[in-house]
């Protein structure tokens, strides 16, 4: 099919040839050391300045981090998040007045339990990262993924934000500057906090072998790599959120680069996550209420980060992930990544165009207010549910219809019986719903999930391998839904 207006072609196809012995386009004196974009040659010094400025500008422009606020930096060991850590260090090392004013902490989620590393490799990676973290002097938390089996149900609840962000920002900064002046006369209690750091970091990093087994079981019962990667993302997010909450961090910084975000935009569109696209890729994501996720690296391309890390010796650690060494077409995420990277090589504006497209979108979830009943949220990803069936035609409705039409009367019966067991033994054997375990069947879980998370759970063969905090929260919500249904006729509907 041909489409009108292929007008961006000429723009997209422009490619520049690197020129040798070019002058820096900024200072116009020093010899350029690198080309960051088409035609933009920078010398070492100007590049560093440009890079650092961009980080502060991103934080300054958005004005969401308050003075003395505790901010958790999510570091995976990869180039982008390691660079983010280096930027925060840089921002804190500077002298006043432009010094960053928040209190950072570092979190690393150790995912070796699902990525097939030997305990020795696992240990080695953790030690490497710990060395990097220790050098920063920031408190750090190394959390094994196995800890999802000890999470409380409350992780899956979105908490109403305590304060209205934005309006009081200036007042808070002024207040901070005043107290800062008073502090300057006394010695800041630095050593004390350093001690606390060392204590903090050691606690959480243990895990039980049975949890490693349970984790392996969960991931082996996910049939596709697409679902595994999606599940890993969700669980990692829960762990970070939980750690932030128990240690009082109200902001979390994620190291997503522009390149990563462009890949994420297309991946999420392909996974059916369009409704939450803006929240998943924006600078700040406040879906959890009390803890806000920030993406301060979103304006750097992976190439810029690579250059910076190399020129200024930022250490990063290579840790194999779920899709390391996987084929290009092994999963939707992997496929999208190779598609974007290849296209970017031929059309250098691909990444920035996709990234800018996502900036023009906004979240479908309405902002939460404390007065109204919160809109139902997905059990796993906590975004607003996009599975409401309306009278209009929609892809969701069409998919349900296709399934219904190609399913015969036999299967139809099986499905309607699942979970309720109306004395039909045959159905019980199939669905396993009469067993004593209180785990809800997959079909029940579905009603609590968004479109995309349903796809992931569809690929899960054993629902009971999910960690307890998910299954018990699911039960809780189902009980509440059943309760609401029972008393439905007495409730006064508020107009939406």
């Amino acid at each position, binding site marked *: 099919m041909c489409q009108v207006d292929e007008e961006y072609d000429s723009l997209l196809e422009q490619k520049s040839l690197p020129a040798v012995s070019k002058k820096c386009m900024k200072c116009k004196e020093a010899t350029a050391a690198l080309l960051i974009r088409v035609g933009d040659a920078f010398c070492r010094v100007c590049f560093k300045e440009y890079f650092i400025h961009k980080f502060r500008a991103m934080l300054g422009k958005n004005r969401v981090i308050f003075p003395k606020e505790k901010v958790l930096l999510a570091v995976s060991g990869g180039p982008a998040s390691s660079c983010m850590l280096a930027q925060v260090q840089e921002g804190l090392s500077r002298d006043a007045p432009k010094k960053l004013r928040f209190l950072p902490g570092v979190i690393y989620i150790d995912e070796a339990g699902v990525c097939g590393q030997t305990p020795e490799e696992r240990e080695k990676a953790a030690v490497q990262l710990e060395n990097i973290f220790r050098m920063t002097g920031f408190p750090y938390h190394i959390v094994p993924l196995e800890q999802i089996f000890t999470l409380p149900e409350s992780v899956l609840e979105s908490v109403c934000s305590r304060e209205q962000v934005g309006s009081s920002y200036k007042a808070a900064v002024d207040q901070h500057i005043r107290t800062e002046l008073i502090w300057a006369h006394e010695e800041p209690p630095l050593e004390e906090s350093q001690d606390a750091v060392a204590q903090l970091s050691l606690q959480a990093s243990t895990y039980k072998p049975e949890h490693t087994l349970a984790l392996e079981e969960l991931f082996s019962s996910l049939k596709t790599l697409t679902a595994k990667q999606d599940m890993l993302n969700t669980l990692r997010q829960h762990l970070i959120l939980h750690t932030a909450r128990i240690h009082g961090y109200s902001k979390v910084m994620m190291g997503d680069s522009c390149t990563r975000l462009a890949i994420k935009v297309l991946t999420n569109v392909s996974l059916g996550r369009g409704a939450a696209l803006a929240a998943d890729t924006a600078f700040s994501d406040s879906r959890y209420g009390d803890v806000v996720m920030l993406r301060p690296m979103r304006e750097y391309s992976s190439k810029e980060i690579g250059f910076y890390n190399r020129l200024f010796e930022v250490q990063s650690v290579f840790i194999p992930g779920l899709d390391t060494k996987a084929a290009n077409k092994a999963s939707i995420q992997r496929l999208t990544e190779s598609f974007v990277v290849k296209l970017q090589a031929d059309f250098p504006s691909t990444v920035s165009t996709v990234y800018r497209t996502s900036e023009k*979108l906004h979240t479908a979830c309405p902002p939460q207010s404390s007065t109204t009943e919160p809109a139902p949220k997905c059990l796993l990803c906590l975004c607003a549910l996009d599975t409401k069936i309306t009278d209009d035609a929609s892809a*969701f409705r069409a998919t349900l*219809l296709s399934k219904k039409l190609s399913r015969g009367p036999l299967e139809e019966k099986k499905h309607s019986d699942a979970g309720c067991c109306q004395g039909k033994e045959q159905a019980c054997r199939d669905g396993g719903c009469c067993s004593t375990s209180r785990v809800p069947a997959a079909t029940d879980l579905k009603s609590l999930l968004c479109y995309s998370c349903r796809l992931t759970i569809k690929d899960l063969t054993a629902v009971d391998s999910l960690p307890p905090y998910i299954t018990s929260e699911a039960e809780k919500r189902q009980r509440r839904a059943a309760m609401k249904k029972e008393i439905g006729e007495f409730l006064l509907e508020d107009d939406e």
Partner: protein
Amino acid sequence: MPIQCSSCAKHRAVLRRPKTGHSLCKSCFFWAFEEEIHQTIVSARLFNRGETVGIGASGGKDSTVLAHVLKVLNERYDYGLKLLLLSVDEGITGYRDDSLETVKRNQQQYDLPLTIVSYEELYGWTMDAIVKQVGMKNNCTFCGVFRRQALDRGAMMLNVDKICTGHNADDVAETVLMNMLRGDIARLRRCTAISTASDGEGAIPRCKPLKYAYEKEIVLYAYFKKLDYFSTECIYSPNAYRGHARTFLKDLEAVRPSAIMDIIHSGENLSVREGVKMPVQGTCSHCGYISSQALCKSCVLLEGLNRGLPKLGIGKRHQLHDKILARQALTKHEEKKLKAVDF
């Protein structure tokens, strides 16, 4: 061992549905496929009783299946529609002349009246002549813009209430990806709509009844129904950039068959931030057709062809619209940029 149809559990299954993975027998597949399109038409309220509906027919698989299914459903569910076929002759020797033969056969097979409008009579240019001037690059722009308007003009001549086209789920998903890649936020928002707004002046509403039908199922349907269709790629080079999106979509479908529907679901649920600049629909001051600029794309393209400056309409050159309207000559420098490039 033969597999049983999962729907009726009586007959032998002959195919596995690309959309759901279920194994079905021939008659259950036909029924499901047609019923789904019927449900789409009903739930999206695409037609009203008594309307005249023009089916954009190219002779290809999508429009052939669309014509067939609409005729079947119109009789089965008594929509009360007057159906007719509308074809556009772009003037591409060795491609369109052959496919139009298929449409003519369809006309007899389905007993539907057929009208053909040609680029030559509407614009005075055939695609062959355009390609001669423009070259192999960018000619899809001319063809696409002209076809859209030609279909509208043909529909107006026939006094049609609605036009429907054979765009399928793959096409819609591909367009979502394409618009993300190009950063075209206005089209991104519009492209998943099943029908264009009917309140727009001057334009006849268009709809896509096959929006949720997989391309592979359309081929399966045509294959088992033994429908007569034309399947050759256009002889002029297909667009490279869109080709990337198409390949990507096919790869996604191979990894997870529901990906096509998932992308459409995403597209339907995207919402555009307030304050993002959107083009405003107006009318072309030359021909009166809908346009977001002073001149519609088709008039600019035509002007370029007639002036011997084919690149006039390629890319964004709104600053030249005033000059064209005032029938002024362009400067030497401007002209130089707009001449066809020789390779």
